[in-house]
């Protein structure tokens, strides 16, 4: 009596291997992936982490850059792509080599004092970005005529409920799908018929303006492109993916491709805005409605709606994850009990921190008369200022051979990474000096704004 099912799987020829001198064909072993399968196997955390940079703050900054300076900052977008690739790859490597998150490593290697410092930096940076996500939610829904007084509190409450009740993962894909709208930017950039020769020239030939506005936007662009939370996310996502140090080799392409792809989109946002707003003489982007006009070549009168959907998706996606990831890594660093399925009594620090970040983000975003885009750019600048701290921690740890063994940085890598860090520190120092002198009534750039 033979049980005969209807459908037979087609028979794979299997892999020829020799075990103890005996050749055999084994069909259950994993074939090394090739071609598109190879990409599918490695792409993941790096792509998501880098593209998280194109959120509310990112769009605001890139749109401002394009409107104000046209193609003038494209050269730094190219340079910064390499910096981003290197930084994200180091974070991924640190995750694979140790199987642990950044704050966890800081705690174990550098003790409680440095941990407190790192936690404050992470709280400031991520708290700022959380505010910017709620600003993004408010601005996006205002485009559809919904008052931010309604949308922001409702979004915050819904986000809290979704995360604490553990159903966030289910809606996450919807938010992610909404951000696909931003693929409209490359289309808009092409339809706007920019002068491609001009675009190419500005990508390779640096144009520098000596004024405070330019410096501020420069640091903001660095801050939004290489945001501290992207490194934290990259590292913990690699840990979660379960990459073993022995097989890290191929994974690094995930970080590289992610960085390249996300900055390509960012560059198209700049080009689209430059080719529409900047050429039309509108050099200041002050609201979401202004920024949406860059999508007019592709969507015409529906530009605002298209922009609104994308902005809402990107903002919602980060508004839940960011406070959660922050609460998680801070709890991890201090040894607080953590986990979304624990209630307030069992994990007071974790749930308290998550709730505080969410509430604070929503409250600040609701301050009346807030200059939306100015605030978003200020937050990205703050991220740029705090970035060197995180970079130095990563660099110190990735060079600690007792910790990472042969996955430590090579010399070329160290030169590039330390170069990025020191350049950034120089920029930040210049920005801070200018702000301080400005307050004292001295203009560092000789009235060039």
């Amino acid at each position, binding site marked *: *009596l*033979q*049980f*005969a*099912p*209807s*459908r*037979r*799987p087609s*028979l*794979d020829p*299997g*892999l020829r*291997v*020799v*075990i*103890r001198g005996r050749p*055999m*064909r*084994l*069909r*259950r*072993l*994993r*074939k*090394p992936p090739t071609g598109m399968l190879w990409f599918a196997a490695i792409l993941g955390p790096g792509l998501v982490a880098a593209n998280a940079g194109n959120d509310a703050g990112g769009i605001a900054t890139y749109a401002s850059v394009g409107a104000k300076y046209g193609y003038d900052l494209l050269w730094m977008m190219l340079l910064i792509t390499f910096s981003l690739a290197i930084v994200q790859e180091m974070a991924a490597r640190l995750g694979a080599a*140790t*199987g*642990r998150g950044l704050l*966890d490593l800081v*705690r*174990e290697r550098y*003790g*409680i*004092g440095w*941990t*407190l410092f790192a936690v404050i930096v992470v709280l400031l940076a991520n708290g700022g970005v959380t505010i910017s996500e709620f600003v993004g939610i408010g601005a996006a829904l205002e485009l559809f005529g919904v008052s931010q007084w309604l949308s922001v509190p409702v979004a915050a409450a819904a986000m809290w409920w979704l995360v604490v009740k553990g159903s966030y993962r289910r809606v996450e894909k919807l938010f992610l799908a909404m951000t696909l709208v931003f693929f409209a930017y490359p289309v808009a950039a092409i339809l706007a018929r920019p002068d491609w020769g001009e675009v190419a020239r500005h990508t390779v030939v640096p144009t520098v303006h000596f004024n405070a506005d330019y410096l501020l936007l420069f640091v903001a662009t660095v801050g939004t492109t290489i945001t501290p939370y992207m490194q934290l996310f990259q590292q913990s996502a690699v*840990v979660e993916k*379960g*990459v*073993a*140090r*022995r*097989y890290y080799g191929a994974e690094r392409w995930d970080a590289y491709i992610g960085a390249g792809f996300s900055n390509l989109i960012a560059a198209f946002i700049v080009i689209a805005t430059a080719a529409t707003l900047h050429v039309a003489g509108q050099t200041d982007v002050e609201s979401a409605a202004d920024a949406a006009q860059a999508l007019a070549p592709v969507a015409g009168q529906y530009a605002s709606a298209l922009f609104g959907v994308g902005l809402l998706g990107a903002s919602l996606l980060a508004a839940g994850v960011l406070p959660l990831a922050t609460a998680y890594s801070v709890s*991890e660093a*201090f*040894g*607080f009990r953590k986990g979304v399925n624990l209630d307030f009594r069992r994990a007071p*620090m974790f749930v308290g921190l998550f709730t505080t970040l969410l509430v604070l983000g929503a409250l600040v975003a609701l301050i009346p008369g807030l200059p939306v885009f100015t605030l978003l750019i200020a937050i990205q600048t703050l991220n740029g200022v705090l970035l060197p701290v995180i970079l130095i921690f990563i660099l110190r740890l990735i060079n600690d051979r*007792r910790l990472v063994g042969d996955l430590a940085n090579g010399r070329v890598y160290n030169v590039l990474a330390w170069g990025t860090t020191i350049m950034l520190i120089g920029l930040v120092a210049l920005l801070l000096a200018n702000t301080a002198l400005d307050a004292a009534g001295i203009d560092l750039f000789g009235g060039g704004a």
Partner: protein
Amino acid sequence: LRKEHPILRLSALKGAKVTLDGGASTALIDLVIDLAAGDYPSVIHVLIADEDGTRRALPPPNRIDAHGVRVAAAARGEVVTEDALARMVLLRRDVMDALVVDLKDLRIVRVNDLLLQSVGDGWALTAADISPWAVVRRLTRGLIGRDVADDVLDWQQVEFLRGDPHAAAADRDYHRRVARLQPTQIARLTDGLPYMHAAELLTILPDPLAADVLEAMLPERQAQVITELGSGQAARLIAEMATDQAADLLGHLELDEATNLLDAVPPERARLIADLLRFPADSAGGIMTNEVVIAPVAGTVAEVLQHIRPALARPDFVYFVYLVDDEQARHLRGVVTLRDLNLADPETPVEQIMRADLLTVGALESALDTAHAVSDHALNALPVVAPDGALLGIVTLDKAMAQILPEAWRDRMPRVFS
């Protein structure tokens, strides 16, 4: 932890001085403990430094308090090489702020402070403070803090790991208290550990237990952890695992890693595992096990019982005995349960009590259809046969359920039949 003895927190020794017999004093670098010394590791050296940074080890302290450490030695101790330093367990460098296994509540916790107490004629590490208050106390230099006795974890309940899987192979000391837990409990604990720590935990367990723990880990975790075990131990664990579990694991590994490991497994186990690996993962052969008890059909009940005795010695679940015409050709003739064999008259030919009208499945049939057949017919095991009727293995109920159930349920499902 003896509450009546005075307790000193390691954090209180921040910036403390070491005073020698002659009255000379120098900065305390660290305290060296002996992890192998009983329930509470004793402080065996006081570590100080020369001006050029060379580390020196002094004898154990004879007094420790908030003012500093006193050592009954006149000289400045012996020079410690970098190598020796790397092998030592230092309280500040290694244990403070580390992740440790809490064997009482079965969770992974962070050491926020360490408690030292005078025991007998020396000092020993008696507990770890894992409360958030310890963090506050350290950050405020003891100004704000609360003693929460509930969150002090007695060191007897702690397994300390170095985060280095090669440490155990290099003969370093461990408590190995974690070995008292059930394999599934240890596997769930490792879920919360970084993979280097999880691999290290496997290396300090005896092989049979480590193999059971490895079987109970999630597939991605298995594949990650096995890369950090020494190749000798990895092969030993794979040989120790049930063949279907071993085949599942090898199927998750990179090709060269899988073939290298299979090469290092003893030949008779390697042959059984390779036999399973011939079949695609989504076929009946891909979810079967071939650790099956067989006996010749031409015999009495007593002869069959005698024949299967060695096979029963293996600690796996056995209920069915498959009867074949010949142990080489293995053409399946029928099945008999252990209960039937024990209840029947020993002189009865086994053919008279066996079930001959068996439901079987071809090795290349779909795994999902096979799984549904197991559940639809309420079987405990479904024999898988070659086209000529030779018995290849059986698909057990739990492997069938693992195909049908949603992924989230599989991890929590007890394994009964394999």
